């Protein structure tokens, strides 16, 4: 299904070089260098306020950076609106608070962008939407409105909505941290399946179980910097930096 994301060419999916960003005087991202290969699955973690959200929001230009360069799918990011939209076509994003469109049904949420952005005929877009809703196991709710669904269901719809645009890379910003504990698994299961199909993924999450099972690399950020990055096994068992150790001890409990 996501075979178009197979490593068709070997240009990296995302390249960031010397990325710096400020909010006013506050230096939120400092000299970030990060390359994500196609098919790679990366988990980003770090304490609150360390700039994780800001980092992944720069990739689809929801935040603007002031220094350095970002290349997404071979397209260099510029200020040009058309260029930005072109990049966004290849980049799916899932938000902490789902951000479904409350005035549209689940089906309309998913078919809206294919119809209006990719100019697909309505029927085709709706068939596509149903197909992805089935994949996230929520097709029977297609005609409900987001407000009638549980948090876990809403987040699965949000994932389906992104997938309908056939993105080459998916960004997740703490997709499970607004959910009740019993709903976290249903969302993580969908994400694991997506990873198994070869989707390139960048996930900001504190679900360390997820990181251990699917991540190719875990990145630890603190104060706007990438402090440490490694494969999950050495990252968790043998963290190098003191800050990573402290963070892991806090998050894994005692």
């Amino acid at each position, binding site marked *: 299904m996501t075979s178009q994301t197979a490593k068709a060419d070997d240009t990296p999916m995302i390249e960031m070089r010397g990325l710096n960003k400020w909010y006013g005087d506050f230096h939120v991202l400092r000299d970030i260098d990060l390359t994500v290969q196609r098919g790679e699955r990366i988990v980003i973690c770090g304490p609150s306020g360390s700039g994780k959200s800001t980092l992944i929001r720069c990739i*689809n230009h*929801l935040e603007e950076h002031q220094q350095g360069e970002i290349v997404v799918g071979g397209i260099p990011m510029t200020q040009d*609106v058309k260029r930005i*939209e072109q990049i*966004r*076509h290849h*980049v*799916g*994003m899932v*938000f902490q*608070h789902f*951000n*479904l*469109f*409350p*005035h549209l049904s689940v089906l309309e949420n998913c078919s*809206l*962008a294919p119809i*209006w*952005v990719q100019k697909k005929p309505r029927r085709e877009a709706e068939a596509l939407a149903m197909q992805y809703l089935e994949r996230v196991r929520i097709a029977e709710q297609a005609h409900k409105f987001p*407000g009638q669904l549980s948090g876990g269901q809403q987040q699965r719809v*949000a994932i389906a*909505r*992104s997938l309908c*645009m056939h993105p080459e890379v998916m960004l997740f910003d703490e997709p499970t941290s607004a959910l009740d504990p019993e709903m976290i698994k249903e969302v993580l299961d969908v994400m694991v399946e997506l990873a198994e199909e070869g989707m390139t993924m960048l996930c900001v999450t504190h679900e360390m179980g997820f990181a251990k099972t699917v991540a190719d690399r875990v990145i630890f950020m603190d104060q706007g910097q990438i402090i440490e990055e490694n494969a999950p096994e050495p990252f968790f068992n043998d963290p190098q930096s003191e800050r990573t150790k402290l963070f892991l001890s806090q998050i894994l409990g005692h």
Partner: protein
Amino acid sequence: MSKLTLNTTPVDARPAPKRSIGAIAWLRANLFQGPINSVLSLLAIWALIAGLTPLIQWAIIDADWIGTSREACSSGGACWVFISARFEQFIYGFYPSELRWRVNLTFVLFAVMIAWLALPRLPAKKLAAVLTLVIFPIVAFYLLHGGSFGMPAVPTHRWGGLMLTLVLAVVGIVAALPIGVVLALGRQSKMPIVKSISVVFIEFWRGVPLITVLFMASVMLPLFVPTEVDMDKLVRALIGITLFQSAYMAEVVRGGLQAIPKGQEEAAAALGMGYWKRMGLIVLPQALKMMIPGIVNTFIALFKDTSLVLIIGLFDLLAIVQAALADADWLGYSIEGYVFVAFVFWIFCFGMSRYSQYLERKLHTGH
């Protein structure tokens, strides 16, 4: 032998116990709770009786209702004969009487469209909105003004009365809404020129009274258009009212836009939607729903303000009643005239106000 039983039939719902029963208890709880409350209640009741009795006496009990001339008014109360004798003029102005069916048809069409839009039970709201905002104004123009399709033209200086008041108010609000949306979007724009033009426009029109706007529209507007274009006085007033109203509408729309969480636009942007799609498909549909009560409120304000057009010589409901007061046959019945005008305005404004309250409740609970 005792047996453990399990009662699985649900217990019937019972009404909540009443706190107190009967008129006496109600009076005691609401009007006579303690000495100060009792005194205030008695004072208020006395004021109501003292004020309302003569009014009811004058307006209903002593009033004259039937007749055609002032001779019918002899009982000393209100002379509603004056209103009924002039009623057609108050509604239609100087619109030729054999063509008044066209005004009636427009009113009926308008009422049907409003009912369709306002009653939640009726389907196809989008179609209704398009019909009301696009098709109806065209139909209404040809019906009221005529001059084609075999209907004789009725120039606007013959329009008047309630009909003119409604034309001013409805055109003002309907034309101001899209302009207000554009201004509100402009005010939020990141482009400095667009933003400052919008801010200056909004603040200018919000800072001047409607009465000066109308003077400007009737005196200054002709200076800006070529002399050979003889701009209709009504059109000039409509332009003035629309620009004035759009500034207020822009502020209502801005409030609605700000109530939409930022995540909505971000989610739309992340799906690759451009600015106009984000606004048109995601932000505005949600914001407009929240804006309805605010829009209705500005509409009420505008509806009352339209009576100011009398100072530039248009005969709206108030102006035409005032003109009738000067009629030698009916001298001395100005109170009846003004009470009638107030009553008509009140009916419309009260209706709109109730509708907006209903909507607020509905939007508050429903989701």
